[in-house]
């Protein structure tokens, strides 16, 4: 039986949602490819996560739990994953396109000689082979890609693939893997900002601010709305380049490409490079005082108005909504 192999990213002993999306998609593809799903877990103490992976569709979980694999290090993780690939000889290898998956997948692809398609937003089994759809030019175009030979390796954009219905009665065979755990480049310190923040690329709701806010002193209007909605905060290139906010918050072609359920653009006119980064959001709201702003061309709901008047009211209304729902 063919194998679909997935990499499950965990942080602090918890599986990332994106890892479960990848397993769910692997399970969905397994039917069309007549395959079983093997998932690779790396890190000491991660064996306890195998049950959760099984409930989403893993038939087999390979655990590399060497004590030296606690902190992510590219070379050590790449060696472990490559080892699992050589052992399982999978037809398909899937990783989440998270920061870790982005760093890890190419190293593994070069090591095992696999063709790799990044940031896929749809996969399909056709005649026993994988076909993928992926954005290029930050979403200004969509490519259909196919592989010659195996393994067919792909990274999957977080937030796009549906989570399967977990079934607690499903069990997976758990086996131990081992590979040399040394790495030349390694983490020396974790920055304070890493704790507890939802990355933009994985946020379900994003509230973004642009030049319409007029100055960094007004950016808290955007942050307040984001807080009221439980959203991550984004920004346009103009305000990042002006130094109002950190570039990690930039949405667009030279920033993050995002696909949240809801994207609220406040005072963002919608330059083509910004639209490229967010137009695959499921629902888009634009608040802008210029009726001709290009952002209204991609928005589902528009409010023609002054951000300084609209945002506080919107924050109030959002607070009331979420309070009433507990």
């Amino acid at each position, binding site marked *: 039986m063919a194998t679909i192999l997935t990499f499950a990213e965990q942080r602090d002993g918890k599986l990332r949602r994106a890892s479960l999306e990848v397993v769910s998609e692997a399970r969905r593809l397994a039917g069309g490819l007549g395959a079983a799903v093997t998932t690779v877990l790396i890190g000491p103490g991660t064996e306890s996560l195998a049950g959760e992976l099984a409930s989403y569709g893993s038939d087999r979980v390979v655990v590399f739990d060497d004590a030296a694999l606690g902190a992510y290090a*590219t070379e050590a993780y790449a060696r472990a994953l490559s080892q699992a690939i050589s052992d399982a000889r999978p037809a398909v290898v899937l990783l989440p396109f*998270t920061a*870790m998956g982005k*760093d890890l*997948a*190419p*190293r*593994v*692809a*070069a090591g095992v*000689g696999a*063709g*790799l*398609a990044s940031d896929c937003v749809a996969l399909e089994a056709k005649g026993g082979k994988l076909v993928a759809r992926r954005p*290029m*030019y*930050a*979403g*200004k*175009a*969509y*490519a*259909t*890609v*196919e*592989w*010659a*030979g195996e393994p067919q390796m792909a990274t999957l954009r977080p937030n796009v693939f549906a989570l399967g219905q977990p079934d607690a009665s499903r069990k997976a065979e758990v086996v131990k893997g081992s590979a040399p755990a040394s790495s*030349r*480049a*390694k*983490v*020396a310190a*974790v*920055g304070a*900002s890493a*704790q507890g923040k939802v*990355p933009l690329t994985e946020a379900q709701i994003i509230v973004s601010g642009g030049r319409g806010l007029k100055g960094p002193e007004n950016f808290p209007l955007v942050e307040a709305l984001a807080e009221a*909605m439980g959203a991550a905060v984004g920004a346009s290139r103009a305000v990042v380049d002006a130094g109002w906010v950190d570039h990690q918050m930039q949405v667009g*072609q*030279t*920033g993050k*490409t995002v696909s949240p359920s*809801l994207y609220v653009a406040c005072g963002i006119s919608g330059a083509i490079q910004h639209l490229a980064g967010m*137009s695959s959001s499921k*629902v888009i*709201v*634009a608040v802008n005082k210029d009726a001709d702003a290009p952002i*209204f061309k*991609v*928005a*589902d*709901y*528009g409010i023609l*108005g002054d951000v300084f*008047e609209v945002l506080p*009211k919107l924050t109030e*209304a*959002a607070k009331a*909504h979420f309070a009433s729902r507990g």
Partner: protein
Amino acid sequence: MKIVVCVKQVPDTETRVKIAASGSAVSEADVASWIVSPYDEFAIEEALRIKEAKGGEVVVVTAGPDRAQAALRTGLAMGADSAVHVKDPLVDASDTLGTARALAAAIRTLAPFDLVLCGQQGVGGDNSQMPGLLAELLDLPQVTVAVKIELQDGKAVVEREIDGGRETWETPLPALVSAQKGLNEPRYASLKGIMAAKKKPIQVLDLAALGVDAASVAPKVSVTAMELPPARPAVRMIEGDPQTQAKELVRLLHEEAKVI
């Protein structure tokens, strides 16, 4: 200190993408201007700053057709010392791994070097693969998406972006580091720099010169079709005073769009 910087020529980020007649690529005829991929400019700038602080040389490397030489000239005009152009139709028709194999072979001809710098992503292809592919093929440690690089004797201390935060990594040299926005502010080439760049050497190498066989660059991943994104439905404008608009929007997002 010898630093190799990999660069890619890409369509300007303001480009309105059109699909070529082949149906599986972007129409190059409709690309008004080509630029050095913005992340690669951060890599070039960082290399030049290291050279200015510690001495040494900077070599820019690219793969691509004739037009890609302009990207090398930009690097040379900014201050790089020499350039290598991997030019072979088989590489142009290859995928990321095949291109990486050709580039790795070109970089090996420049050994010994201390550092290989790349942009964290080539805008357009948006694969974010080249740094990791090259690091593995060259057997170098890698630190990707760097926003700060400090060189101390024999090692690099690199601040890098992770999901929702930053981490500091350490790596012995030689190493490969990929550049993220925030690393620096790239300089503009001066007129003098542009003039000087015309006299700087560009070595052109094809697969035969690199000793890479055609089979190893045969694409394993191919784009079989390309299309523009589906058009979004027309916007629904919400009328009224700000308070009414706000309440109505929240109602619609909850009841109609079901996203909150």
